[in-house]
């Protein structure tokens, strides 16, 4: 019965929320007075209705909405960041520019804009490891990693990354030696952080595209290292 306490809490939380909804349904005006943002029930239907209202009022262009969603589903994502990392591994001049001004350097590869306006790239070395979090919301370097995974936005990660970062890394399978300095970056302003992971050993002969294929999203957040390619296998 390991989960019984959390189950109980989940159920009582849902019950409390249902009562909250009920209270607002009965007295919507009073409910609005304390300036809470109320969580609507049945999001799919509510969103459909809201979208049709905003479109009918001419507030939002549905084709623009399609284009925006499509861009972040198919064009902007961690492969952008992987290209940046691979370039830094093979081109020391680029790496220097990247560490000095992340935003200007990623623009050389055609990346930038929202979620990359003020990009700071932090380098992992044998003695320093960097980890990125947003404890207050979900700030993330969209321009190079796309939209964040659910775990990055979860209460578990946001709460513990600053107080128990080594424990979090262990959960991700990364045991950080005690002699390595750990730097946790809490994204509390509009600066965004990209971790430049260490280039794994045994990759000296790989081309830039092959190197990029090794680089994972998690390594660029700092919860993992980039693994060396499997012997005999291609990147």
């Amino acid at each position, binding site marked *: 019965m390991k989960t019984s306490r959390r189950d109980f809490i989940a159920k009582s*939380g849902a019950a409390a929320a249902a009562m909250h909804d009920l209270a607002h349904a009965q007295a919507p005006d009073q409910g609005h007075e304390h300036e809470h943002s109320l969580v609507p029930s049945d999001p799919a239907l509510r969103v459909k209705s809201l979208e049709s209202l905003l479109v009918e009022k001419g507030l939002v262009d549905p084709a623009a909405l399609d284009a925006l969603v499509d861009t972040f589903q198919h064009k902007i994502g961690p492969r952008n960041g992987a290209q940046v990392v691979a370039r830094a591994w093979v081109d020391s001049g680029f790496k220097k520019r990247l560490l000095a001004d992340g935003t200007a350097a990623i623009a050389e590869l055609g990346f930038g804009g929202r979620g990359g306006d003020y990009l700071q790239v932090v380098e992992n070395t044998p003695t320093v490891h960097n980890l990125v979090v947003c404890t207050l919301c979900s700030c993330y370097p969209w321009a190079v990693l796309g939209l964040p995974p659910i775990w990055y936005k979860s209460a578990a*990660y946001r709460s513990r990354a600053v*107080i128990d*970062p080594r424990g979090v890394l262990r959960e991700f399978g990364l045991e950080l030696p005690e002699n390595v300095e750990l730097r946790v970056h809490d994204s*509390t*302003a*509009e600066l965004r952080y990209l971790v430049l992971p260490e280039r794994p050993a045994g990759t000296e002969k790989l081309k830039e595209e092959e190197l990029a294929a090794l680089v994972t999203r998690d390594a660029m957040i700092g919860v993992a290292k980039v693994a060396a390619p499997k012997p005999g296998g291609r990147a």
Partner: protein
Amino acid sequence: MNGVHDMGGMQDMGPVQREKNEPVFHQRWEGRVWGMMWLGSAWGKWNLDAMRHAIERIPPADYLRVSYYEKWLAALVDLVTGRGLVTRAELESGKPAAGSAKATPPVKAEGVPALIARGNPVKRDVAVAARFQVGQRVRGRNINPVTHTRLPRYARGKIGTIERDHGVFLFADSNAHFQGEKPQHLYSVRFTARELWGEQASARDSIYVNLWDDHLEPA
């Protein structure tokens, strides 16, 4: 606001649960909400800080219970009604008020690349003196505003070092409430893990937090 959103340092939230091959959006409506928030902001009725504050105002039990994009939906409803784009009656009926004129959306499909490229420019090219210098010891102020703040609770009253001066940025805490940009210097402040969490933390670890002049005092 000392809300449940200010999570840094809380415990017992369970293990970090990961999903293999996670899609960008799990359901179609999530992408629609996310996109409407952005396109809706093009009307200039709210900014990113106000949007964050709308999410923070979700009642704490709901905040912890519902999914990420359900929070966005709650905030979007809050913003479009609270900032005058949509009336409560329109929201409930799902129809524009009778006789209301149809607006022209500020962003069309062909304008989307430019919208993304424009980003969220919040750095300000104004001459404001920095109150602190790189290397200086500072303390996170012991403030507890009921309004939006980007000074996390765990850094209040704690001593850190200015690592970097990022220049002059608009101040999120006032911008969220449409009370002006109050441009001022933004820094990376390094707090040792032991300063924040005591002896249980590793002596080698540090937390870097971006804080503005108004969040800090000399130590």
